[in-house]
């Protein structure tokens, strides 16, 4: 693989970690979050600052996850207070708040211009890709594990009907916070990895549009479905590259795609996959 392909693949893997994190919050636990990019940003800035201060990735990446997770729990606590109708807007607000503060903070965070000259992680392009690939695989494995565990079962209940879940002894607030903590920590990891990849980060990388982009990867994949989300993330990340001629029309295609999927196939790729699978089983073919 050439340098260019390696870079692409690395970005895909970073996005997978990011999307799987949101999948945990929104897909598994049913909490719609429109501010996921903020946690991505928290992770990126944390890792960038620590890296520039001389710490190795062994320190900066875990710290990035920790900071993102802490901010995630704070936002999660906020979300517990409001009606669930307002959750989406509250998380959107949290995202704008993060962005707004970072943009103005010149002394440490570089303000509008961001942070540049982030030191290299010490691996070459291929090595870095392998690292990110490994972490993405771990993220997927972790998601799968949680889904199969009793925590995932409780998440399903909360996502389906949180009042009934309460009736069945589920400590709903604790589970929601757990989902936020884990999902945002994953976003923080993705952020740290992005910082080392791009070596330069700025506030606009972590804005509302980014949050929507991530949400659409989850939605197109099929909310809650791990493989669907992975595939959708890959497609949506690579799409502008493969359809180079689209260039100028990239966002338009993207918008139409989002709309079309939700309008005609709201269960996303996972839903389509299930349909195909069911048809084949019904037809008597071996599944």
């Amino acid at each position, binding site marked *: 693989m050439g340098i260019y392909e390696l870079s692409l693949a690395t970005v895909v893997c970073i996005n997978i970690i990011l999307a799987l994190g949101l999948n945990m919050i929104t897909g598994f636990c049913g909490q719609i979050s429109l501010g996921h990019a903020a946690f991505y940003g928290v992770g990126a800035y944390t890792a960038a600052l620590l890296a520039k201060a001389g710490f190795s990735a062994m320190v900066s990446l875990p710290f990035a996850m920790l900071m993102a997770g802490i901010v995630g729990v704070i936002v999660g606590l906020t979300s517990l207070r409001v009606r669930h109708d307002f959750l989406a807007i509250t998380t*959107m*607000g949290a995202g704008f708040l993060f962005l707004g*503060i970072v943009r103005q903070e010149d002394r440490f965070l570089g303000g509008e211009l961001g942070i540049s000259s982030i030191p290299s992680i010490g691996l070459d392009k291929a090595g870095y890709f392998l690292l990110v690939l490994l972490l993405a695989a771990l993220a997927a494995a972790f998601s799968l594990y949680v889904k199969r565990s009793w925590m995932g079962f409780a998440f399903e209940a909360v996502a389906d009907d949180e009042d009934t879940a309460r009736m069945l002894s589920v400590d709903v607030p604790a589970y929601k916070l757990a989902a936020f903590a884990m999902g945002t920590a994953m976003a923080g990891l993705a952020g740290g990895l992005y910082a080392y990849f791009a070596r330069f980060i700025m506030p606009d990388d972590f804005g509302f549009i980014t949050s929507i982009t991530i949400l*659409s990867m989850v939605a197109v994949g099929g909310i809650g479905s791990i493989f669907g989300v992975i595939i959708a993330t890959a497609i949506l990340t690579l799409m502008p590259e493969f359809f180079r001629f689209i260039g100028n029309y990239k966002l338009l295609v993207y918008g139409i795609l989002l709309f079309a999927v939700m*309008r005609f196939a709201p269960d996303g790729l996972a839903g389509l996959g299930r349909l195909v699978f069911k048809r084949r089983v019904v037809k008597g073919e071996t599944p």
Partner: protein
Amino acid sequence: MLALFLENVMLYIELLLQGLISGCVYATIAVGLTLVYSLLRILHIAHAGLFALGGYIGLLLTNTTGSLILATPLAAALVGVLGMAIYRLCYQPILNRPPYVALIASIGLFIAMEEIFRLIFGPYGLSYTQPPLQTTYTFAGMTIRAVEIVIVTGSVLILGILSWLAQKTRMGVAWRATVDDPQMAESFGISVLQVRYLNFFIGSALAAVAGVFVSLLSNLVEPTMGGVPSYKALAIIVLGGLGNVAGTMFASLLLGVTEAFGTIYIGEYMDRDAIAFAFMIVILMVRPQGLFGRR
């Protein structure tokens, strides 16, 4: 000493005025949004696209016909009809799906609209060939432009008429009944479908008018103009309470003023847009149902 105090008072009044003006614009956008949300529980992000479209149509019609007075209602009507079409083609088929479906569909639609504007009209925006309402008036040491006066009076008038209609006319009562309990409304013979169409028409027309307002204020329409005001409008409908048009209007003004003052005093810590959301979050922490929400 007195001079300093008076200077400050002048500043405060100017800020208040600025806040009220942007508040009126916000109100015109937010009311349309809250109409849709209260009726269908959908966050109609595409509303932002209709807002921008209204600005474009208003500006283009004014440039070709030379008459703002003709262009504005026409823009409102056209966008209103488009709004109804959006309801029928986009939202109606997915009403029984979980809420994130309509939300993301709306977002996709908005992104597509922004892009269409960019591709057709160019990324740098359009301006009025002869910007209307630019005469300035000075009184008590402050300057105000004709357009600002028109915006305030216009929005107060329009929203006032709407509120009156909602209370006094049959259609208004039908709308309120449908918001409260669609099934019961239907059993009383109210056509829920008609109410929805009217809802989208009025809401979208309002968005268009707001778009024209903004185009007049900055003498510019550009593809991304819909984004930020609409995000704030979302914060406003949360604060104003569901289906509470009066509450939304009040929250809009409050937000406009808070922003104006906030930018001066905490502008070094966060930018203008963040102030709006910080305000929303603080209020929600104290009153999770919004300023005027129930329960």
